[in-house]
């Protein structure tokens, strides 16, 4: 009957809409169902976070292992205090690991890379990474480069 095709049409339409939402969630935004209980927090203080944003990824050896959840200013040391949320499966970071702010490509997004240290003790939930390397600020770099060349020419 005519009613039947109509109902089938509506059913397909609703399904297509829901399917679209699922596709956007999984394929486009890369949402994975990982509850927050499987993560732990670390802090890191940087002299200059220069363009790092909340939700930036945290990588180790190029593999994403967490994300930045908060950025605020530490009142006492006047440094940028970054809260990292790392996956529980990476719970063996040595205490002297280094966190540095890196840039994907020349103009890409800022993210945090962690390089492993050598100590036996590991960072616990809520600990702070002391060894940090701030973002490379392009202006400083160019400034230094120019000074260098001027210096060389003077010789």
């Amino acid at each position: 009957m005519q009613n039947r095709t109509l109902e089938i049409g509506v059913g397909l339409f609703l399904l297509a809409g829901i399917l679209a939402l699922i596709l956007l969630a999984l394929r486009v935004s890369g949402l994975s169902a990982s509850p927050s209980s499987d993560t732990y927090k670390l802090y890191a203080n940087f002299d200059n976070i220069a363009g790092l944003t909340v939700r930036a990824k945290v990588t180790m050896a190029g593999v994403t292992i967490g994300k930045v959840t908060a950025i605020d200013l530490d009142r006492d040391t006047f440094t940028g205090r970054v809260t990292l949320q790392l996956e529980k499966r990476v719970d063996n970071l040595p205490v002297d690991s280094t966190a540095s702010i890196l840039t994907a490509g020349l103009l890409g997004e800022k993210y945090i890379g962690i390089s492993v240290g050598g100590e036996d003790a590991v960072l616990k939930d809520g600990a702070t990474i002391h060894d940090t390397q701030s973002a490379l600020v392009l202006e400083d770099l160019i400034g230094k480069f120019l000074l260098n060349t001027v210096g060389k020419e003077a010789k």
Partner: protein
Amino acid sequence: MRKKSMLERIRRFGRSAIDVLAVLGRSFLFLLHSLVGRSGTGGGFQLLVRQLYSVGVLSLAIIVVSGVFIGMVLALQGFSILTKYGSEQAVGQMVALTLLRELGPVVTALLFAGRAGSALTAEIGNMKSTEQLSSLEMIGVDPLKYIVAPRLWAGFISLPLLALIFSVVGIWGGSWVAVDWLGVYEGSFWANMQNSVSFTDDVLNGVIKSLVFAFVVTWIAVFQGYDCEPTSEGISRATTKTVVYASLAVLGLDFILTALMFGDF
């Protein structure tokens, strides 16, 4: 003389302000009576299904076609700009963010206003001019519940779904142009997209936008039909008004919503 004309101008200004307020009041009451309270007649679900068909399913074709083309154009334009900076991998993230945050909800709402909104206005206006609404009233059936409410709900449900479908086919069209045609590496196309698109901030905010648009566009369309002058010019004027008002409302609201969602304040 001059003083009088000044006074007359102020009077006219006041008059039109009162008229606008009256229309707003009527439309709020209209919405309230349509959506709140007992329906009194059964078969509400059947009516909704029928309207979902004519409002949603029949708008699908135009949404899918325009979605594909807009995605393809975005990919082409994005590629030609990004390739100057050597970061053509970012074309995926650009297409996805543009579609999810802006073009998906907005363009869908505009197309919906033109396709389904004007049809709703004309249909209800026609029912009014052929006395079908009066006739329903005299049979003891509230036309707001029987005619208007299912159409409102159908619009509220359809538009967000259409916007989602629009975004998906748009991203698909973009990936087709970027990956298959322009030769962007497929892995970095999708990976860049997944890294930069957040489900809550981008996808869900887009859905919230299209929910707001759905509400406003359907409301305007149905109210214009119900409130129109029951003549052929009245109906055609109401149809035009629906498209104009709905489009303006969508664009204006889009600015406000974008400022609230992505403006960081």
